[in-house]
């Protein structure tokens, strides 16, 4: 090898190592910095009380409840539709115009940024349907956002179920729907759950789509009836509270406290999907 070539090769390696190192260092720096800044704000009362000047407490309990409610409501709406759509696309549909249109729409939907979902949710669910700023408006908006995610993951999972299973069930006299219900959905369950966890992760981290749909209230609902009426009231998630704390309130202690909680959640969700993928390696079981 010529000397010039050697230098060029060396430079190539240096650049590649630098770029790859950048991502890792970046992640490490983000985690260390957020924990260093925010760990001191996070304690039991931060997680279980609501910020109140009267009582002198600082806490995000209201935002945690709102986040959980929005996650649960969104998933309750999205799972049936997403799984249903995937079943249609994979088991019933014959290739043709409708399927191409549905797939085009799914791709398009997954490419729309969350701020547009937020605008549409505000106009359609909030104003046209009269739901205003509420947890329900937020959940319906996020339904549109995570629908492609659930549909895709379920579809992928259904594709990996072996053809023998379908033939076997049909051969034994089971109807198509019976086969789907008892054989295909259980076999595809790990894939469906992975999709659900990914969707939960997106919802927990979402803010732009929620600012103008679910609003920013941080009150803690009282009792079960309070929880129900909360559906129709404004409720800010942790991310929205972080945004407001950092920008309009200038309360960086709370902002970093929330950032710590969010980072821990994100880490757990990431770990969860990894473990699930390792435990239920769908391709391995079916091969």
């Amino acid at each position, binding site marked *: 090898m010529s000397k010039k070539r050697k230098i060029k090769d060396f430079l190539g390696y240096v650049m590649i190592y630098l770029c790859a190192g950048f991502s890792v260092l970046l992640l490490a720096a983000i985690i260390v910095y957020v924990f260093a800044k925010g760990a001191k704000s996070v304690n039991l009362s931060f997680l279980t009380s609501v910020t109140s000047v009267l009582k002198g407490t600082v806490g995000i309990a209201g935002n945690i409840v709102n986040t959980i409610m929005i996650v649960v409501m969104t998933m309750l709406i999205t799972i049936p539709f997403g799984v249903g759509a995937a079943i*249609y696309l994979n088991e019933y549909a014959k290739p043709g115009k409708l399927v191409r249109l549905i797939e085009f729409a799914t791709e398009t939907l997954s490419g729309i*940024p969350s701020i547009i979902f937020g605008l549409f949710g505000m106009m359609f669910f909030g104003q046209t349907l009269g739901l205003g700023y509420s947890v329900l408006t937020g959940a319906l908006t996020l339904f549109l956002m995570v629908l492609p995610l659930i549909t895709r993951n379920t579809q992928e999972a259904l594709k990996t179920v072996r053809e023998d299973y379908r033939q076997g069930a049909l051969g034994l006299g089971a109807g198509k729907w019976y086969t789907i219900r008892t054989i295909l959905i259980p076999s595809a369950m790990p894939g469906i759950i992975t999709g659900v966890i990914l969707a939960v992760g997106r919802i927990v981290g979402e803010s732009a789509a929620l600012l103008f749909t679910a609003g920013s209230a941080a009150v803690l609902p009282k009792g079960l009836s309070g929880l129900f009426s909360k559906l129709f009231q404004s409720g800010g998630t942790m991310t929205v509270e972080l945004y407001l704390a950092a920008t309009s309130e200038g309360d960086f202690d709370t902002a970093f406290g929330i950032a710590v909680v969010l980072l821990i959640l994100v880490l757990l969700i990431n770990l969860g999907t990894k473990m699930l993928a390792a435990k239920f390696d769908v391709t391995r079981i079916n091969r």
Partner: protein
Amino acid sequence: MVEQTAKSIVTICAVVTIFAVCSITAYMVMKGTPALKNVGVSSLLFGTSWKPTAAEPAYGILYIIITSIVGTSVSVLVGVPIGLLSAVFLTEVAGKKTSAFIGAAVELLAAIPSVIYGLLGMMLLNPLMYKWEKIFFAGSKTHQVTGGSNLLSAIIVLMIMILPTVINVSATSIKAVSKDLRAASLALGASKMQTIFRVVIPAAKSGIMTGAVLGVGRALGEAMAINMVAGGAVNLPLPFNSVRFLTTQLVSEMGYAQGLHRQVLFTVGLVLYIFIMIVNLVLQKMRREAGADE
């Protein structure tokens, strides 16, 4: 009977997506067009003065549009090479364990909520920018001091946020390059670096381009993080100017805007939506072509 009902129900589930896309498009157009008529197409889209609450209001969004275009292009132009080389490291250079470790780190980067990127940008980038601003513009009479919230901060945040997308898509397409090509290149006496840059990357070109376009889509649509670091004034997109993107304009003013101001914001939304749809169509075309190649 059950069979028929089941089939109808899942069909409806699948068609919901089509309805969703149609109604989003319809609403964006319906709400976004009135201002075009009320303000006038040219003074709205090509006006450079943004004074929505002044006694004689002006609603020019040209600077906002240019900012989105400039911010997105620069962050992608910087982010794609870094992402591509990281992907090369993951697939060609690193061992299995290192590759898995860095892959996991990249996945985590993708999962971090955008408000956290924004918060870190506020705390780390903006003070740094303020320092530089004081050095570069010391004694300048025309420069408006921004305190560090500027286009450059936003571009850095965007660049970081698109990295995971670019890395993942590039890595997938590099992995798909046939081993024979590498073997042939090495057998002809090319070094590993020559093989990577002259053979593997050109072979994975279409996948890498797809990653870049995906990055454009993400950068164009990002709102919260850059809203926290880009400042609050509509200006020409110069590195040290406080700027508004299409998305940040919506985030920061939708909460209180009334009347014509609100209508104009919906037009801003429509412009963003059109940009995103163009990116989406390009992306789908690229994917179809890639599918046809295989």
